């Protein structure tokens, strides 16, 4: 309330500042008389701090979330809901997305990369909570290219300094096998192909562990191995009715994609099982092959640790033993042979046992690629003597002599015409 002012009408000292829309007025509170009023328009200098500020200069940009970031956060939440992840996963993935978005490289990236970033954040969250989720699943859901996804994923892990644990194989087996549509009879799945989920899961897990022990899983995509193991487990539970079913048909029945390397993984797994079967006395006489060994998978898996030890030998230990044996034979050949004979006490005498195969990754067991031999260095100088049998090839026939003389004469004439004296 301003001091010293009085209303000209009633003389009251109760004057208040009031504004009529944008015009400030001094009004008497007793009689309502307008004592003074301000100007409607202001000058540029009068406005001062009341001037309008552009968005880029204001602090709103830092405080508010941009439209593309909002869209990304919405996509993260949608993806978590589609994958039916717990709500804690959603919050963690959103936090990672916000953290990544603060980096200028991500903020200025293309929309395709930002879309893929959504999947990366969800994948990292799942891995940290040991939730089995493959990159292939996320790429399929986001319609993204695996190469773009892998580049963005490695970039984000490095940028945020995260420690992402590896995919847990056992959990992936359980999740992947649960997606197979073979546990209930349906019009597409005959009753003889329906299987109990728990039995199939436990046998598949044992087969995957066996594959891991025998170097079939390391360095390879896990899904083809799991598909091959699931197929073998399913076949072995009722072999009489299921041996005729192929891997491709099995995947079609189960409503699952057949990954390309699955058939070669299957062959490798069958080769390992055949090697193990050779160690069991009651299976040696049956002369098993890759089809008939499926019937005995249950027995083989029960004693797999012992059978793997007997059927395969360690590659490096064998090399060292071989070197020591060679050194021993160099000194005393007789003693070396006796030692080799007494080492195999459980074998019948007179029979030479088949040596166990080396337990090595398949890439090391395959023969090395043949290197193209370099072309032989030619030593022909042109000064060698010509042999009598070849000399005739160097002599001209009379016809060739006549043609050569004609050509020479024509050339001389042409030179004579072009250079007139």
């Amino acid at each position, binding site marked *: 309330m301003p001091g010293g002012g009085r209303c000209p009408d009633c003389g009251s000292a109760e004057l208040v500042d009031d504004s009529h829309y944008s015009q400030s007025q001094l009004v008497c509170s007793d009689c309502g008389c307008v004592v003074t009023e301000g100007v409607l328009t202001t000058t540029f200098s009068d406005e001062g701090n009341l001037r309008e500020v552009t968005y880029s200069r204001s602090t709103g940009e830092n405080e508010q979330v941009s439209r593309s970031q909002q869209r990304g956060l919405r996509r993260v939440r949608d993806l978590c809901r589609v994958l039916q992840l717990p709500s804690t996963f959603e919050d963690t993935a959103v936090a990672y997305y916000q953290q990544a978005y603060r980096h200028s490289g991500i903020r200025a990236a293309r929309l395709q990369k930002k879309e893929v970033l959504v999947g990366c954040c969800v994948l990292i969250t799942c891995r940290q909570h040991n939730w089995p989720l*493959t*990159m*292939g699943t996320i790429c399929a859901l986001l319609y993204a290219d*695996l190469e773009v996804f*892998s580049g963005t994923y*490695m970039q984000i*892990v490095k940028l945020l300094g995260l*420690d*992402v*644990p*590896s*995919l847990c194989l056992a959990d992936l087996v359980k999740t992947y096998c649960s997606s197979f549509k073979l546990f209930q009879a349906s019009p597409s799945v005959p009753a003889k192909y329906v299987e109990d989920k728990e039995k199939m899961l436990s046998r598949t897990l044992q087969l995957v562990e066996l594959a891991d022990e025998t*170097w079939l899983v*390391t*360095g*390879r*995509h*896990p899904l083809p191995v799991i598909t091959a193991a699931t197929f073998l487990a399913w076949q072995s539970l009722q072999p009489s009715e299921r041996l005729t079913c192929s891997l491709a048909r099995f995947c079609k029945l189960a409503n699952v994609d057949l990954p390309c390397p699955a058939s070669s993984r299957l062959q490798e797994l069958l080769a390992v099982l055949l090697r193990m079967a050779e160690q069991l006395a009651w299976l040696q006489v049956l002369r098993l092959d890759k089809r008939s060994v499926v019937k005995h998978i249950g027995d083989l898996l029960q004693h797999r640790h012992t059978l793997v030890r007997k059927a395969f030998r360690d*590659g*490096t230990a064998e*090399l*060292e033993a071989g070197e020591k044996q060679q050194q021993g034979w160099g000194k005393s050949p007789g003693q070396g042979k006796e030692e080799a004979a007494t080492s195999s006490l459980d074998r019948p005498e007179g029979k030479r046992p088949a040596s166990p195969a080396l337990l*090595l*990754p398949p*890439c*090391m067991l395959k023969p090395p690629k043949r290197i193209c031999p370099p072309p032989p260095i030619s030593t022909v100088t042109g000064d060698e003597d010509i042999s009598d049998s070849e000399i005739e090839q160097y002599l001209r026939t009379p016809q060739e002599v006549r043609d050569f003389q004609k050509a020479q004469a024509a050339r001389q004439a042409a030179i004579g015409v072009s250079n007139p004296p």
Partner: protein
Amino acid sequence: MDAASDVALDILITNVACVFRTRCHLKLRKIALEGANVIYKRDVGKVLMKLRKPRITATIWSSGKIICTEKQVKKKLNLVPDLARSLQELGFRVIFTDFKVVNILAVCNMPFEIRLPEFTKNNRPHASYEPELHPAVCYPTKSLRAALQVFQQGVSQ
């Protein structure tokens, strides 16, 4: 491995990547038309020139920057100026400057196999193993300023 049975490990250099500048503008179309063993990638704006002896793949940009990758390096890397000479023969006033070796790829074979999942667990957080993307473990070392790729066969790059 025992200390008594030490095996000598050879580190073989397989690839060397280097960069140099020619200090002149290069007409890619002319190189593509008149040069030998060239591939012109017009959409990207570069020419690939592949030499047989030595086995060099050169990426040539019109600004004069050239990146060379030499394979099967057995002798000293002294044959890159041959590339600059071949450009000179095409008519460009090439000056061979700012030569720098950017990357060296070497291979070392271990006499044992490596279980990659266990190796990754024991070397976290440096080691990164993604079997869905690459069959090897990526192990960057800050002290050596190198990145190792460890394969299950015992091959390290």
